[in-house]
């Protein structure tokens, strides 16, 4: 539970986050529908349930100089970085107007201008890359920080452990965030972790280790600010955000490894409803405000679908472009 209160920040800070979370939720639910209609193919990993993590963490950044990298469940992080939902949906549709020109798909959203560097489909493979981005920030003294997201399934990859060590021996400006949604595909994190306390493992690399409630965006935001400040001062940090995903690992997951009761219990602590009810209790959000947010998000996502539908397919010649600089 967070030690900060809503009053510590301007109301707009929280309303912006609420809106971003709702946009992600709406986008993902629509993406799921579009997948069902076969407008979207392949692997599609939805972020529903985890919205507070990307939103709260990325809100603590200055994307003029900071960077974000994540794994294949990347729609939420991309939207939180300000990527246009139209370009995001068009990418899922494989259209040339997509954020990666229809070549990346769900797992490979990129927006270099907004400092969102993917979107990586190999578990843990973005972690050394993010460490290198932080190396460049350190080398060029930009004052920037890199935020590197990954899931609990990535925690035991060698890439992570090698990167933690490199970041600490060179004091790179990076914050590593494990979004522990508790299920690495269908494997519970406790079953495969010699030490299920990930922050403690980070401390083994002499790195600051934080744990936050990933469903409580106040806690996420506060923890991110502390960790980002630490990284900006040359001390890399690690955060475990405890969270939960509502949907399957991908669209093809029958979810036999967990019970409906477990999923429903988490939905009772839904991150969006949690912030919404707090804002209401503090008289910072009226029913009308909320209705407006919901409507705006629905409109944005409907427009995104319409844009994606109408956008052209890449021309056949595009097969051979964008490979070499």
């Amino acid at each position, binding site marked *: 539970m967070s030690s900060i209160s809503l009053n510590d920040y301007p109301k707009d800070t929280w309303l912006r986050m609420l809106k971003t979370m709702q946009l992600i939720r709406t986008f993902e639910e629509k993406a799921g529908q579009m997948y069902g209609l076969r407008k979207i193919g392949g692997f599609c990993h939805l972020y529903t349930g985890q919205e507070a993590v990307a939103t709260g963490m990325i809100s603590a950044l200055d994307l003029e100089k900071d960077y974000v990298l994540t794994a294949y469940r990347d729609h939420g992080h991309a939207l939180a970085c300000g990527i246009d939902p139209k370009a995001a949906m068009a990418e899922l549709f494989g259209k040339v107007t997509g954020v990666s020109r229809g070549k990346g798909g769900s797992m490979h959203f990129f927006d*270099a201008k907004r400092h969102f560097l993917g979107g990586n489909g190999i578990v843990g493979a973005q972690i050394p890359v993010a460490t290198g981005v932080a190396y460049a920030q350190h080398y060029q003294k930009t004052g920037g920080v890199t935020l590197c997201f990954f899931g609990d399934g990535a925690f035991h990859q060698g890439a992570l452990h090698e990167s933690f*060590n*490199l970041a600490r021996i060179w004091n790179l400006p990076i914050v590593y965030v494990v979004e522990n949604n508790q299920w690495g595909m269908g494997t519970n994190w406790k079953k495969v972790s010699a030490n299920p306390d990930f922050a403690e493992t980070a401390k083994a690399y002499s790195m600051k280790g934080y744990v936050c409630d990933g469903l409580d965006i106040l806690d996420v935001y506060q923890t991110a600010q502390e960790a980002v400040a630490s990284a900006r001062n040359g001390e890399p940090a690690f955060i475990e955000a405890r969270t939960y995903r509502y949907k399957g690992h991908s669209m093809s997951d029958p979810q036999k490894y967990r019970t409906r009761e477990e999923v429903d219990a988490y939905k009772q602590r839904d991150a969006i409803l949690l912030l919404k009810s707090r804002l209401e209790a503090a008289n910072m959000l009226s029913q009308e405000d909320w209705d407006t947010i919901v409507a705006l998000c629905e409109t944005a996502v409907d427009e995104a679908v319409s844009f994606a539908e109408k956008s052209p397919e890449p021309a056949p010649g595009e097969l051979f472009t964008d490979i070499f600089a």
Partner: protein
Amino acid sequence: MSELTYREALNRAMDEEMARDGNVFIIGEEVGEYDGAYKVSKGLLAKYGPERVRDTPIAELGFTGLGVGAAIAGLRPVVEWMTHNFALLALDQVVNNAAKMRQMSGGQLKVPVVFRGPNGPAEYLAAQHSQSFAAYWAHVPGLKVVAPATPADAYGLLKSAIRDDNPVVVLEAEMMYSWKGEVPDHEYLVPIGKANIVREGSDLTLITFSKPLRVTLEAAEALAQKGIQAEVIDLRSIRPLDEETLYASVRKTGRCIVIDEAWPMASVGSHVAWLISKNCFDTLDAQVELVSGEDVPMPYNHGLELLAQPSAPKIIDAAKKVLYREDL
């Protein structure tokens, strides 16, 4: 002209490029205080400092991926692998990130990173340290792959690789580091994608790259003694491949042997031999021969390890077949 060793030529290339561009830095195991496991980075730590000549822990996956990330964020890393054998631990970062991030991002990112180190059989190193991985890298779209066989090309190709906006894998060789050759004193680049006709001839074409150039030239000399003029082509660049230079030569000679020290199956050599067979079909007077490394893990025993590699006698045996001359 100066006579330089291959390692001195590589060192000069890195030194000049680091002086020219502050975003170029070297990273790898023992590159700094130790002056390089093979002394290729000798003196550079003293000249450029530890930020630009970065010693790493033994973590190939980690520091190779770090090089990819530094490249997409604006630097020009030169990642030294102590050997390509160890680079297998970093294969994912090269194949899945370095080679693909530009395409997956729809052309938004550039990945100007160089991966370099010794590749191929050496001496007395046994199976894990004596093998050629040229085909592993050459297989992957999105990578460029160069294999300089002389000090002059080592200098000019490494400079081109560092200036290239794409990931470039440089295949060096432990045995070649001490080989000497003439290197022009003035600054120059060797373009990536251009083969070199090392020796002109009209009777058959010998195509090779990297260290086997030496035994190929020995074979060409021996054949010349018997009145056979072999044209010797050094690929220098494996990807992109200078196909036109190869075809022009084979269309002239009508006969071709490809020499590659790697294992024969799915190798650079087998691919080149197939290209020649297909594209020069009408002008070939004999089947294309491949002289490869033997299809075995490298043994430690020196006699056996020499038997496992291409040699001048093996090339001459192949020449007998393509020339239909048992008397050679």
